[in-house]
């Protein structure tokens, strides 16, 4: 990646990433360095959000990755390079359904033609579904486009990860909870497909699958202890 905008060399960044990854608590000087790096992303944020609002004509919210999330990501990855993290800053857009998602993704890619698209509907990350677009503006900026169902699942997954531990989001945690979360994600994905196809065009296979999930839902909710 291009680091000339950050005021830190790639080597400095990656050494900082190493220290963050290996320390039990980050040193004040390292937090200050990280802040200096993140400031470059922050400066870009308003401009990118403005562009995205023009494209969507609706709500766009942004978030900047927290220190514990950065450290957790560095610990999960080998090699763990701070310079390779692409979602230090990002935006989230929630749309009604799959059609709106496809339409918006196309518009965003039209605006940022060099962007890379990670379609997690086709290849979910531990059952997490969405479309992520990383635009080079010129630092990497991650735009998450989620349907309402995908957002519902992602929020639930975050809350359950607070309860059962961060690893739940990455395939760990209690196996029954992880499995129930996966089934719930599959159910919501099937529901999204049903809405996109319309009830008249849905195949018997799809409706059969969804009926089976609907029957399983009370059990899933019980396992997930959502009361």
């Amino acid at each position, binding site marked *: 990646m291009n680091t000339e905008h950050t005021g830190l060399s790639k080597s400095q960044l990656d050494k900082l990433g190493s220290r963050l990854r290996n320390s039990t608590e980050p040193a004040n000087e390292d937090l200050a360095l990280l802040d200096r790096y993140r400031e470059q992303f922050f400066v870009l944020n308003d401009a990118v*959000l403005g562009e995205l609002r023009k494209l969507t004509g609706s709500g766009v*919210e942004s978030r900047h990755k927290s220190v514990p999330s950065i450290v957790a990501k560095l610990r999960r990855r080998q090699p763990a390079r701070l310079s390779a993290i692409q979602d230090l800053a990002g935006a989230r857009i929630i749309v009604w359904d799959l059609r709106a998602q496809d339409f918006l993704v196309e518009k965003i890619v039209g605006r940022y033609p060099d962007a890379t698209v990670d379609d997690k509907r086709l290849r979910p990350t531990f059952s997490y579904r969405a479309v992520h677009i990383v635009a080079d503006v010129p630092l990497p900026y991650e735009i998450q486009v989620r349907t309402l169902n995908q957002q519902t699942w992602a929020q639930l997954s975050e809350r359950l990860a607070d309860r059962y531990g961060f690893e739940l989001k990455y395939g760990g945690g209690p196996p029954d909870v992880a499995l129930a979360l996966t089934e719930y994600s599959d159910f919501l994905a099937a529901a999204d497909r*049903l809405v996109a196809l319309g009830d008249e065009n849905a195949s018997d296979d799809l409706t059969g699958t969804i009926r089976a999930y609907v029957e399983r839902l009370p059990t899933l909710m019980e396992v997930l202890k959502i009361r």
Partner: protein
Amino acid sequence: MIDVVVVYDRSAASMIEQHVYSGDPRAAFARRFELELAYRKRTDVEVVLVSGATLDDLKTSHARYFDPGAIRADRETADRHKKEIERLLDRAS
């Protein structure tokens, strides 16, 4: 546009503090750093900076920070989805 700095305790699933800035993103950025230093020994605490048009928008897109107890709401959402899906299934059959 508002910028909100949230201090969130993951192990307790609760918000510790929240600071809302309207039209002053620099102040929000600086505040986040102060809070990161203050909480640096708490690995279970996240200091998060989120931005959006309104606080209500942020409560939707980043619900976990603003209403951590809302697993209840997830249940309500699941029940609502179930009803909608059953309605679609009825129409499909």
